[in-house]
């Protein structure tokens, strides 16, 4: 049996080329400027781990802001979309299809197209430079995909479970809290991942609505971070890597859901 070395070599070359910029970032993040000037290509001793603490000092507020925004958005999105998904999947009432179509139609509205009017609205509400201005668009966007995913998932839960609970005297609220929510944990996790990914990649909205350094999220903060550290490449790349850690960790441990999230955000995929 051949070991398929040719194919493996070709794939290894592709892997190396794909990862090269990130590997270069990793090795350079451990250098001081002298090492960077003298040994541009290869890693050299000693490793300057202090680049990471220097970088952390600067990006900490950005990370905190991103975590706060992501956490608040996740809680709100799940609260809204779990209730709506449950009602839409398990109750029949006049207008049910209409409401669902009104929600699902928003999948086709790109967030970039409401950027300008939404910005003006937030300025009128005097919400610029606050947490709500960062959180609201993520919630407004996330509940759409959230509701669709939840509804689809809840429809797949066997009706017998609900019937059995009803016979035992459970009401709508009890059904929701004791049966549906625990069963929906996988889809809750997917929605949370999509939201985190969205917060870490959102760029124009925080760029335009936030001018206070303390409130900048990671994606925008890194731009200003670059300006502050000037030509100190080590701490700069260390900062980029630290900012990537949350997504890298999620990718490593939850890659299946991560990929589902990437594909789930597409129009027409449900």
């Amino acid at each position, binding site marked *: *049996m051949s070991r*398929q070395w040719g*194919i493996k070599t070709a*794939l290894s070359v592709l*892997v190396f*080329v*794909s990862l090269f*910029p*990130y590997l270069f970032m990793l090795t350079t993040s451990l250098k001081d400027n002298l090492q960077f000037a003298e040994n*541009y290509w290869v890693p050299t001793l000693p490793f300057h781990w202090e680049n990471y603490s220097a970088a952390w000092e600067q990006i900490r507020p950005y990370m905190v802001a991103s975590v706060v925004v992501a956490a608040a958005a996740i809680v709100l999105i799940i609260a809204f979309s779990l*209730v709506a998904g449950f*009602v839409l*999947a*398990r*109750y029949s*009432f006049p207008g*049910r299809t209409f*409401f*669902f179509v*009104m*929600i699902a139609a*928003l999948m*086709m509205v*790109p967030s*970039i*197209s*409401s950027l*300008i*009017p*939404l*910005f*003006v*609205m937030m300025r009128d509400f005097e919400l610029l430079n606050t947490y709500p201005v960062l959180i609201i668009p993520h919630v*407004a966007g996330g*509940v*759409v995909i959230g*509701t669709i995913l939840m509804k689809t998932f809840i*429809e797949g839960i066997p009706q017998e479970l609900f*019937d059995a609970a*009803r*016979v035992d005297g459970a009401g*709508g609220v009890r059904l929701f809290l004791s049966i549906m929510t625990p069963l929906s944990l996988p889809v809750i996790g997917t929605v949370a991942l999509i939201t985190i990914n969205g917060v*870490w*990649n959102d*760029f*124009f909205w925080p760029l335009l609505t936030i001018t206070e350094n303390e409130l900048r999220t990671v*994606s925008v903060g*890194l*731009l200003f971070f670059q300006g502050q550290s000037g030509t100190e*490449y080590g701490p700069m790349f260390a900062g*980029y*890597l630290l900012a990537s850690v949350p997504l*890298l960790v999620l*990718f*490593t441990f939850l890659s299946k859901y*991560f990929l589902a999230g990437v*594909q789930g955000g597409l*129009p*027409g*995929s449900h």
Partner: protein
Amino acid sequence: MATTAGTPVAAPPAEAPPGGPRRRARISWAAYLALLPLLVVLALFQYYPALNGIVRSFWDWNPGQVSTFVGLDNYAKMMDDAIWWRSFRNLGYIFVFGVVSWVIPLVAAELLITLRSQRAQFVYRTLLIVPMAFPGVVTALVWSFMYHPNNGVINRALTAIGLESWTQNWVGDPSYALWSLLFIGFPFIAGLPFLIFYSTLQNIPREIFEAAALDGVGRIRRFWTIDLPLMARQVRLLFFLAVIGTLQYGFMAYIVTSGGPDNSTMVPVLRMINVAFQGQDWGYAATLSTTLFVFTLVLSAVVVFVRRSDPASTNVRGLR
């Protein structure tokens, strides 16, 4: 999706009491009440801004001050806006290049499914898509470092192999800036096209490949006669998604080139933002935004239509 008929809802089977209609009405009200918070959020932060943007595209919009209705003036201005149309030409290049670049993920996916060891397949697949896990901004910043005129990897590498005369100010020169943007993320494997190509090829039943091999069909011929036709639906879908994705293209250009030099990398999203935030011309920005919105909406509708008419589109086994 949609209507799961046969999932009887609401009325509890245990107690089908007299006065059923009354109970049903009560449940309806509870349902509306439960949906209310979501509907308020969507009305306020999705429907209102989107509609307001369309309405304001017909106004000389001065938020907080006096706005005047100007009819189609903004649209007339758009028709004459050379930068706006140039930005669409750039989008055209970005789109065509993007589609052509699928060759590399396609080859990578073909190589990958040829591996016999499942474990090796998993390792290579994971390594190939690692760049997807980095925030887009980090990728943009790392690549703008790659293009740095003095310390950048590309110019340093050219110097190191004696091709110093080939070094360029990649993102600062109008004749190279767009090319530099296009090559960000080379070799373009970490992305949706690769994932879709790979999962499609994986889902093709092994027996088909074995039968083809028995009939003496070579690797190249198999690609053209079996793999590609079985992927046609996915390629069509990817194609539409790429159109929509390209229309939203913006933040890479903002970070790496800011649309410059000399508007050579201007894209519609950046033009819209510049008009609004630097020009303070909100009505005209709303016009540009509405135009982009309409383009995207039409194309999204096409995507949904294609997928609907095509229930097996993500599962090739469904073909059998």
